């Protein structure tokens, strides 16, 4: 639960960017946080999956590699046990098959020994020891007759266990051998011991038959860690195994260790039931797990590669996203400012209208009073101080005239807010509007040509709004052309009801795609500077005035705007007062 809320909080904090953070810092914050989030949700599962796969592969592969090692150890252990059991059975058979007197007779014993050596490989000697531990008879290369074994451990062990197989030792003979002793009990409770020695050549053969590669090693040790066979790497027979003696396990087991030479090795072993041998196989790990290491490095390569790709993608995506966000923020702000501006203008307009109206009424009264005074003075034949009074009245009338000019100017400003129909000469409006751009045209060496139809019908329309429309289109044309370019404006009669105005430039032109959206609000090609409102406002005005607007353009071949205006206003309109 705690973890959950913690996580939720952390993620929440990443996504929640306070509004009051200043702009540039805000975007870098957004960028950073989105990057972190995206990396988290993409790389984290990948890492988890890679780890899980890694472990699964590792264990699967390890099993695959270790299984044959176990089998090998098990098989060889069985061979050893079979060999020893076989030799033990032979000695047991001799002990049971022959009587004490037969075995005590050296001649007979020699005969038995000869057959034994002939038939079964590895026997070095054979002897009979009586219950006092004295060698009664002996067949073999050494003179051991009469030797007393009663104080030796093995003798006691054979008396207790009935059977004894010794570890490897050098003994009198200076080469490794193993002693097998079997006790025989007679029915009368007497006993004797048959003792045979076998050499360990067979051990070496068995180990060689494992077919180990040169870097690997196989050998026997006993539970004290003393070598029972020679090891290629760790020591001779009866040296002490420098490594550790593994825990008891009669089933083959595998351990990973660092050996005394610092190599990482796999150590496979199995304990024998009897005698206390341990069969060991040591293989260098690097070699065994070669396949695994190759796989691991490939896995790592794929992992690092994909993480790199993800990081690059995330960075790129975040960059794009934040740039988009920034651009749309900026555009929104511009549009907002534009709207605010027009709101402000229209409020000012309304205020101005109100003031002008309120001032107009008393002004009208003053005007009439002064007018009446003037009339009275003029109509009275010998008015005293006539000239002086007339001068005073004129001063009043002139002041009223000044006020009137002021209120008219105010009203003129307000008029731009609403459609204000008057009968006007379209050519004049165009000339006026072009006048605004004369300076820029001169500066940029732009030829602005007016082909205005003479005697064009006067139309009823809104002067201010038309000016705005023409100015918008001319501004766009100026933006589209290079210095020294050409813009031509033409007017013509279309029919009884309509006149036309066209604006042709030789600028960059527009693609078909741009053309489709050209009148849509907030569509702009002037990245950063345009609001995308100009032409949509233009379109709105032309429609409101009952007209129509068309655009033709091809990239590189300039643009032509054509506006068709009705001669009579759509809802009808008044006479001009001016």
């Amino acid at each position, binding site marked *: 639960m705690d973890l959950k809320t913690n996580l939720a909080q952390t993620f929440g904090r990443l996504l929640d960017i306070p509004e009051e953070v200043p702009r540039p810092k805000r975007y870098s914050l957004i960028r950073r946080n989105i990057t972190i989030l995206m990396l988290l949700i993409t790389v984290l599962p990948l890492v988890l999956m890679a780890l899980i796969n890694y472990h699964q592969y590792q264990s699967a592969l390890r099993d695959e590699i270790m299984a044959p090692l176990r089998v090998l150890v098990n098989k060889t252990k069985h061979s050893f046990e079979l060999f020893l059991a076989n030799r033990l059975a032979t000695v047991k058979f001799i002990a049971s098959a022959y009587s004490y007197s037969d075995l005590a007779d050296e001649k007979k014993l020699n005969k038995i020994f000869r057959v034994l050596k002939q038939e079964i490989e590895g026997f070095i000697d054979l002897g009979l020891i009586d219950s006092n531990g004295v060698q009664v008879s002996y067949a073999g290369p050494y003179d051991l007759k009469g030797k007393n074994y009663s104080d030796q451990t093995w003798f006691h062990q054979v008396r207790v266990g009935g059977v004894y197989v010794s570890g490897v030792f050098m003994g009198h003979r200076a080469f490794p051998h193993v002693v097998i002793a079997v006790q025989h009990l007679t029915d009368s409770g007497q006993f004797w011991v048959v003792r045979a020695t076998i050499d360990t050549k067979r051990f070496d053969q068995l180990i060689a038959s494992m077919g180990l590669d040169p870097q690997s090693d196989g050998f026997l040790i006993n539970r004290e860690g003393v070598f029972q066979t020679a090891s290629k790497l760790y020591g001779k027979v009866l040296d002490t195994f420098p490594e550790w003696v593994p825990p008891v396990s009669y089933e083959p087991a595998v351990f990973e260790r660092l050996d005394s030479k610092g190599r990482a090795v796999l150590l496979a072993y199995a304990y024998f039931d009897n005698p206390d041998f341990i069969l060991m196989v040591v293989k260098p790990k690097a070699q065994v797990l070669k396949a695994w290491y190759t796989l691991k490095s490939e896995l790592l390569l794929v992992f690092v590669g994909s993480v790199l790709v993800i990081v690059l993608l995330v960075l790129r995506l975040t960059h794009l996203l934040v740039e988009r966000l920034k651009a749309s923020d900026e555009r929104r702000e511009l549009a907002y400012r534009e709207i605010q501006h027009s709101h402000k203008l229209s409020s000012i307009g309304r205020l101005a209208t109100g003031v002008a109206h309120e001032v107009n009424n008393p*002004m009208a009264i003053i005007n*009439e009073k002064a*007018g*009446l005074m003037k009339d*009275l003075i003029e109509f009275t034949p010998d008015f005293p101080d006539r000239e002086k009074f007339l001068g005073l009245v004129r001063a009043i009338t002139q002041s009223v005239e000044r006020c009137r000019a002021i209120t*008219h100017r105010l009203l003129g400003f307000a008029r731009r807010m609403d459609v204000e129909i008057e009968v006007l000469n379209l050519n004049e409006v165009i000339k006026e509007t072009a006048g605004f751009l004369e300076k820029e045209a001169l500066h940029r060496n732009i030829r602005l040509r007016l082909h205005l139809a003479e005697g064009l019908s006067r139309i009823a329309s809104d002067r201010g709004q038309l000016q705005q429309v023409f100015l918008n289109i001319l501004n766009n044309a100026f933006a589209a052309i290079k210095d020294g370019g050409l813009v031509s404006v033409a007017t013509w009669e279309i029919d009884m009801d309509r006149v036309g105005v066209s604006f042709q430039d030789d600028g960059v032109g527009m693609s078909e795609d741009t053309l489709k959206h050209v009148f849509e609000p907030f569509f702009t090609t002037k990245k950063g500077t345009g609001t995308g409102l100009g032409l949509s406002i233009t379109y709105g005005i032309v429609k409101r005035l009952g007209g129509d607007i068309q655009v033709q353009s091809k990239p590189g071949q300039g643009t032509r705007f054509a506006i068709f205006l009705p001669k009579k206003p759509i809802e009808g309109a008044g006479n001009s*007062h001016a």
Partner: protein
Amino acid sequence: MRDWKVLLVDDEEEFVSTLAERLALRGVEVRVANNGKEALQKIEDDPPRVVVLDLMMPGLSGLEVLARIKRDYPAIEVILLTGMARSNEAGEGMRQGAFAYLMKPLSIEKLMEKIGEAMKQHTGKVD
């Protein structure tokens, strides 16, 4: 004396009375009304040839008065006065058949000129 019968309608009494006096000095037969209702009453009593009508009045508005005049006395010509603040109303008035509209403050000469034109128009209609 010219045979010019004119009714002046405006809620500003000072304005309308002064203007009436000035017109009278110029030989116009002027009557005055301070609101729409009074104006309609006076027209009913004795129809003038021209009505000079302020558009902005409390009660019955200029446009309403205009509409009734045009309905009941189509021959009477109406000159509208406006503070111009709502020139849409002036346009509307023109559409409803007003003869002309003038901005306040007025010039007496211009008013006389328009009244003169309206008289001619009226005479034409009556004849």
